């Protein structure tokens, strides 16, 4: 049984140890591909059937991820055809990115000089990202779990965003 689908723009993979709910992992991967330009408006997302058989996951999970992307305005379902990319994520231009990278390198040098090791740096970065996101987004991450909604019921969106950011730095 072959699961290779060369015609689709992206191929999902799952990290069983991440603790991030499966549907959110799919959402994050589409967003990531949009940021990096692997996916463009009009591209078709993998068919539910293909994702289901390639990853052996529940079709409702894939549908939930695609619904989430539709709610975010990033994708739209076309009856009988599938789900297609509709929106883009604001992209930072390359020169801007290079500038940000330089600033961060400078900061890393001073963290190094202060004697912070890599784990310490990542922990600090993650916690600052979390704090600043939490401040902007309303509820603090620590309280998010008690709002009782499925999405907010887990801290994973915060963790996911933070670790995604950290990877971009490394």
């Amino acid at each position, binding site marked *: *049984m072959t699961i290779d689908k060369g015609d689709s723009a992206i191929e999902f993979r*799952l990290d*069983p140890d991440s*603790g991030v*709910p*499966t549907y959110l992992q799919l959402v994050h991967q589409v967003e990531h591909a949009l940021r990096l330009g692997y996916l463009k408006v009009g591209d078709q997302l993998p068919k*539910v*059937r293909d994702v*289901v*058989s*390639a*990853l*052996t*996951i*529940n*079709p*409702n*999970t894939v549908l939930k991820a695609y619904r989430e992307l539709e709610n975010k305005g990033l994708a739209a379902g076309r009856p009988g055809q599938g789900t297609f990319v509709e929106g883009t994520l604001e992209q930072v231009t390359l020169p801007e990115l290079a500038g940000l990278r330089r600033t961060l390198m400078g900061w890393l040098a001073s963290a190094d000089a202060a004697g912070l090791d890599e784990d310490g740096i990542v922990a600090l970065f993650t916690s600052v990202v979390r704090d600043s996101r939490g401040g902007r987004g309303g509820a603090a991450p*620590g*309280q998010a*779990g*008690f*709002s*009782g*909604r*499925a999405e907010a*019921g*887990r*801290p*994973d969106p915060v963790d996911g965003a933070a670790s995604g950011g950290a990877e971009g730095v490394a």
Partner: protein
Amino acid sequence: MNVIETSGVGKRYGDSWALRDCTLALPAGHLAALVGPNGAGKSTLMSMTAGLTLPTEGTATVLGGRSPGSPAALDGIAFVAQESPVYRNLSAADLLHLTRNLNRRFDGGYARARLAELGIPLKKKSGKLSGGQRAQLALTLALARRPRLLILDEPLASLDPLAKQDFLAAVMTAMTDDGVSVLLSSHVVAELERLADYLIVLSGSRLQLAGEVDDLLACHRVLTAPAAEADRYAKELPVVQVRRAAAYAHLLVRVAGPAGRVPPGWESHPVTMEELVMAYLRAPGDGWPERQAPAALSPVQAAQSAEPTEAKR
């Protein structure tokens, strides 16, 4: 539509109850995992749904109000019992012929195409096929009946990892293509984590927990609290399970929607499906919380109980 609906259903064999007071409504479109230790009543519930066993008490309906075992219910439900039972002296071709003649609805073209795709020989006796092939053969015979509800009793127990994945991919594809609802029993909770979106936990012949996985995970948290405070809050919160060390305790609690708050200084963590199932299996009571905290554990015991072992069952 509910594919299974039971009200106070129970089954007694001689003096002992295999299932007691089970009230359940499973909506269509899910893959429901039926979990519990051996002897919890999983197979009893499955054979009742399939119409093979009559309840001693209570009522059960399937596929939106049909009586289990009625012709309409039988047409819409396919049941694969443990260990993929097929007649081992018959070939796949014979089994197709047999199944077609024993059922009012059978899609022979689909079955042949599927077996060809899987490379399962039609002429070979099914007893000579590999375990994985036999499981796929049984699944093909079940799916070719075009059921609305597919019941699989411990389908993964005897399969190697590759065969397991292929088998599950086939089940998921049937769900995607035909909207089949699935009820699947297992005692290995970890392997159901990404598959099931509905969870039914049975233990000690009783229903312990049932609901959509996302909802259940959202309304349970693990709180880590100083031991002294834990006792006080354990009385106020619906605690499912307490694990205690000398200085602090982990409380697995059910939180009631937005009103739930964490006392300051406590840590709050989401639960995994496995944690949730284990907690409800370890603390069997009748129905949902108000559970008693177990006696105080030493740190070593607490650490051990954090990793439940099959041997303890």
